Structure formats: structure tokens, C-alpha cells
């Protein structure tokens, strides 16, 4: 696995260290509760969103945007159309909160299998694919600019 960006590595390590499944879920639910802070503002996108913004394989209808910053880094915004898509919201919050200021080269090579460290190895195939789809969208935004 390539080295994770520092802030993301901290969050992944913290959640991965929680061995109690219910405690881990609690942390992820609290994370998802902050989703409004990373929801895409109207100045960036309005519905209906372009299909090219849709995260592949995500059953919760997650969409991803990246806004260029003056220092050459990216600020990520998300929307999750399914109000019951808590895992997708948690994933979005973790990425948005930890990737600010991260060099594009690192974002372009984010490992997608961090979803299992965050959400647990028992994650179903489909759910894992959807969460990886969100990460792959984030990677692609960085790759497009390199």
C-alpha cells in the first residue's frame, strides 16, 4: 500500500484500532452527522448533477466535485442523494476533512482498500465497491490535473 496522506492516515488508524463493532459504527455515524459541512454548495453545483460526477457502483447515489485552490491543492465537496446512505456520507466526510492541502500526487494514488480499515472487513461486496467508487472519483480529480 502506498503511504496515506498524514491526516487521512491518522483517521484510518484511529478507526481501524476500534475492535468493538458497535463502537466503530458509533464513530462512523457521528462522522456522517457532519455531512452538511462537506455538502456541495450551490456555487459549485446544482441539481440535477452531471452524471460524470457520480461515484461508480455507489448505491447511495454519491457525487463528487473538486475545486482548485490557490496553492494548487483541491477542496472536495460531495452530495449523497440517498438520505439513508450513511456510510457514503461518512466516507465523504473523512475524505473532505483529511485531504485539504494534500499534494495531488498523493491523492491520485490513494489506496481504495482503506474502506475495509474504516468500515470493517465484514463489509459486503456491493457496499465496499460503492465506497471505493467514491475514493476512485477523488483519485481521478487529482489525476486529471497531474
Amino acid at each position, binding site marked *: 500500500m502506498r503511504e496515506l496522506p498524514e491526516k487521512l492516515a491518522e483517521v484510518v488508524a484511529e478507526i481501524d484500532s476500534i475492535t468493538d463493532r458497535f463502537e466503530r459504527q458509533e464513530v462512523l455515524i457521528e462522522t*456522517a452527522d457532519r455531512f452538511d459541512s462537506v455538502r456541495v454548495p450551490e456555487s459549485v453545483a446544482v441539481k440535477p448533477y452531471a452524471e460524470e460526477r457520480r461515484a461508480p457502483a455507489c448505491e447511495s447515489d454519491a457525487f463528487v466535485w473538486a475545486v482548485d485552490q490557490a496553492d494548487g491543492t483541491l477542496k472536495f465537496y460531495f452530495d449523497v442523494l440517498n438520505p439513508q446512505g450513511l456510510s457514503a456520507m461518512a466516507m465523504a466526510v473523512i475524505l473532505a476533512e483529511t485531504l485539504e492541502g494534500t499534494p495531488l500526487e498523493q491523492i491520485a494514488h490513494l489506496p481504495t482498500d482503506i474502506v475495509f480499515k474504516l468500515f470493517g472487513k465484514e463489509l459486503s461486496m456491493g457496499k465496499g465497491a460503492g465506497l471505493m467508487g467514491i475514493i476512485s472519483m477523488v483519485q481521478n480529480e487529482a489525476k486529471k490535473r497531474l
Partner: protein
Amino acid sequence: MSSPISERGYARPDVLVSTEWVAEHLHNPNIRMIESNEDPLLYPSKHIPGAVQVDWTLDLNDPIRRDYLKKASFEALMSRIGVTPETMVVFYGDKNNWWATYAYWVFQLFGHGNAKVMDGGRAKWEKEGRPMDRIVPQYPATAYNAPDRDDAHIRAFRDAVLRHVEAGGPLVDVRSPAEYSGEKLHMPEYPQEGALRGGHIPGAKNVPWSRAVNPDDGTFKSAEELRQIYEGEQGLEPDGDIIAYCRIGERSSHTWFVLTHLLGYPNVRNYDGSWTEWGNLVDVPIEK
């Protein structure tokens, strides 16, 4: 807004209950509400008071081989959630009851016939502002003697599917059109999720599973609307020997529920090996 369940012309209207009905029976000790979701964070975030969770990955699957739980594990599960053979279980969940019908289908492999699905699922309950809480209930353990799992009638295995294809039997592929056509195969960097080949099983009709529900409130469409889709558009014969499949058998359990209970088709099987098996098999026929 959909019409009352009893007025929709279903073959088995008794397999569905409305959110109103559930609200009126919340404290009935002979009824167990069971939430089954695609998103594992939903139940712990809040749920219908008194409801237990049955998790597809942890509770219904064998942890080692690709198969469902067996008799002893099913008995242990039922004991843990305080269910006896006489208890009425009512399934509900996210994604238009997709995973709820999957759990329902697995319960039918063990013959728990006193089972229902809450029409509209979790989203409808939540939208109506009905009560939810975060208390995980504990029920006294029960003694549940289950029969051996019966895979013969509602489950199809690959060899039977191959014979079915060779005989020109009807199949319903309930995946998205992009999956059906083979355009979408699997996620980049995640090939184990998908299959080596794309397309569909020869002769299969493509009816995405979610067409069976009303998009506004997640309730099931009326029997007349369902017949128009499956018989009018796709030419399925109600008395045909029908096999439904998707990627791993979860979405097709929803279609199995619709065809079997709402339309009353007597011979419908769910091929849970589905595309993750068929698309990886050597030398089986594929259509694109």
C-alpha cells in the same frame, strides 16, 4: 400515493403489511420487526422501536464457504432475536426493501412461513415521521427447531441453470441495463467484485428489480402494473419455470418476492450464484 395493499390485486396480499399496521402492532410480543439493510450504519443510527437487526453478511451467510447459514446457525439466530416458529416476523429495510426481501427469502429456505414485509420499507416509515429509537432490544432466548434448509424449490444452482438455458427456459436478469449488456463489468482496482466476462445468461429478459416499486414512496406497484411489466413487456408466462438472477442474488430475491407472492407465480427460483458465478465460469454460454 399508492392504494391500500388489499386493493392492489395481489395473489398473496397477506405477505405485505403497511406502515400503519406496523405502528398499530408495535408492542405485540408475537410480532418481531426485523431490519435488514444494505448500509450497515443505518440500524445503529436509529430504527423502529423494538426492531432487531439481521445483517446479511454477518447473520445470513456462512463465514467460510459461499453459502447461506445452515440449520444450526439459523436456529441460533432465531433464538438470539427471540423468535419461535409461531412468531410473525416482519422485515423492513433500506433501498426499497431490497435487503429485507433477501432476508425474507433466506428465511423461506428454512420454512418460516409466518413472515411479512413492510410495504415502503424504512424510508416510508421515516418519511411519515413515525417513532424511531437507538435502543437495541434484548429478547429472551427461544428454542427454535428449524427443518433442514430446503434449497430445492426456491433456489437454483449453476448446473440447473445451465440445463434451464439449454432447454430455453425463461430467465429474468434484474441488474441494470449496463450490467445486462456487459458494458459495466466491475470496479477498477476491484476485479474480485465482478466477473471475467460481461453480458447476460442467454435468453434472459432484463427487468431491473426496482421497476417493481413506486419511486415516490417505495411501495410495491399494483398487480396490474406488475403484470404489464413482466407479462406485457417481457412475455413471461405466469406458470413458467422462472429463474431470476442479479450479481449475487440479493436484487433478484426482491423480484422473486414480487413474482412469487404478489403475482402468484408458482415456480420461481432465485439463482444466488448469479453473475459473480456465471461470469466467471469456464465455457458457459453468454449473450451480449
